[in-house]
């Protein structure tokens, strides 16, 4: 049977949005897919050696909150750190893997990770900030793989 291919573009760098590319990437690899993830713009944060991802309810009224809270209160200093630590505690209690763990499982399963060179330059990141094994490329690099992928997703 021909190997199936799964191409993902990861564009977001918050704690909640770190999950879809790493969950689907690692699971697809376990199911026998060849997986490539192209990280661009804020998605590049998911490739940093030191992951410091945050979550916020600002601009995201669907995020469940322990109690109703006016938006202006949600915007107070320290609220983002509080929401992030609450979310992490909740995930741990529910047996949800950490982003670090899922990323490690992707690496073990040989999921190919490509950092968008243009955004690396735009944000003046140093390539040494990223984990080992990351490749650097552009739109054409992604399209070469995505062009004959069975599934292609933008996240």
């Amino acid at each position, binding site marked *: 049977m021909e190997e199936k291919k799964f191409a993902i573009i990861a564009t977001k760098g918050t704690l909640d949005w770190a999950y879809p590319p790493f969950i689907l990437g690692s*699971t697809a690899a376990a199911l026998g897919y060849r997986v490539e993830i192209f990280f661009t713009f804020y998605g590049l944060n998911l490739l940093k050696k030191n992951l410091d991802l945050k979550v916020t309810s600002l601009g995201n009224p669907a995020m469940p909150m322990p109690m109703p809270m006016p938006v202006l209160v949600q915007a107070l200093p320290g609220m983002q750190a509080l929401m992030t630590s609450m979310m992490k505690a909740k995930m741990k209690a529910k047996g949800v893997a950490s982003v670090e763990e899922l990323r490690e499982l992707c690496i073990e399963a040989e999921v190919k990770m490509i950092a968008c060179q243009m955004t690396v330059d735009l944000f003046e990141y140093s390539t040494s900030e990223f984990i080992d094994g990351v490749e650097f490329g552009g739109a054409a690099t992604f399209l070469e793989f995505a062009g004959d992928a069975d599934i292609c997703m933008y996240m």
Partner: protein
Amino acid sequence: MSQAFDSELDASGLNCPLPILKAKKALAALSSGQVLRVIATDPGSVKDFEAFAKQTGNELLEHVEEGGKFIFLIKKA
């Protein structure tokens, strides 16, 4: 439980997609024809293991639910 197994994986308390990923790793350590027993508590694992078996060719021999735990027997292809 009737069937014998060669290896066991306790994925209790773990959530999607960890039971599948850990089962994949545990199967990699087995030889063809050997059986892995997986214990999970994630209700989503029921459908996930069916899909996993279908797509990887590893056969899902048995699936039972015992006191809130889901037990799967998977035969390596």
